[in-house]
């Protein structure tokens, strides 16, 4: 974020188009590079959540699985807030 972006925020104007462009590019390239469409990612997200839910109780609403990319490396990042551990199912 730049000085201009902050100023724009204060006076309720849109962020600069270069900042928007960079954010949009980073998102679309993360998908392009991994060859994962948003639909596939969504499907994967719900399956991951299902698996994790077998072991720990997670906040289904808060759970986020997303792609992040840096230096041409793409990572699948899961951020799943745990409510509590389901001890009995650990051995299952």
């Amino acid at each position, binding site marked *: *974020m730049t*000085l*201009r972006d902050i*100023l724009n925020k204060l006076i309720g104007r849109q962020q*600069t188009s*270069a900042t928007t*462009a960079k954010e949009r590019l980073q998102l679309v390239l993360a998908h392009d590079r991994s060859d994962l469409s948003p639909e596939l990612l969504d499907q994967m997200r719900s399956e991951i959540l299902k698996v994790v839910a077998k072991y720990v109780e997670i906040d289904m609403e808060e759970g986020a699985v997303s792609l992040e990319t840096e230096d041409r490396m793409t990572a699948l990042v899961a951020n799943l807030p745990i409510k509590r551990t389901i001890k009995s199912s650990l051995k299952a």
Partner: protein
Amino acid sequence: MSPNTRIILICSGKGGVGKTTLTANLGIALAKQGVRTAVLDADFGLRNLDLLLGLENRIIYTAQEVLEESCRLEQALVKHKQEGNLALLPAGNPRMLDWLKPEDMQRIVSMLAEQFDYVLIDCPAGVEDGFKNAASATNEAIVITTPEISAVRDADRVIGLLNTNGIKPIQLVLNRVRPKMIASQEMLSVDDVTDILALPLLGLVLEDEQVIVSTNRGEPLTLRGSRSPAARCYGNIARRLQGEEIPLIDPSKEGKGLRDKFRRLMATKIF
């Protein structure tokens, strides 16, 4: 193949971002430095390199006749009048696209490599066969893009494909840079684009009306030692290719008025 010949693919993904203009200007600039340079028009569908070099009326044979062995390479090469170190191998008939194979491209390029220090390949737009054939014959690449999201996205596709094919090094040229728009943050900056594409920057080329004027004349800007903004940029790129260390033109230093200073202040990254 002569091991010292540098074979460089000039490609972009998106069309119309400046591949042919870069090829023509680099070809002339390298030839001026005394290195024997061949430029190969690999855009068989929509050839244009001959026009940009002002050689369109001197074509007799093309890469097609060379491949069909109905003429020798020397007969097809069009030598530049003022810059004798530069020769063009013209693209053949668009119907070549129907039968051309990667091996054909490799054959042409290795013939050129025997006689030249540099072979610059002007690649067609897209990531289909035309690109793949050309990419199969190269060992290094220059990816050219403009600071626009669609061009950067397509460049990323091409870089991915070049990486998969083991082409190295891959360097970036950022074309049509407008310092004023970058300063007012209505255009992706040089750092934004190199961050996103994660490639070493070979150089940037400023937006410059003289590019059009020189295209009209069929005389690349580097031919007559023009000092126009784009001419300086192309010259710098050629010298960097030759291993010289030339500092980048700083787009933010291009404007010197009070208003430009204010724009620069407003572009300071806070976080």
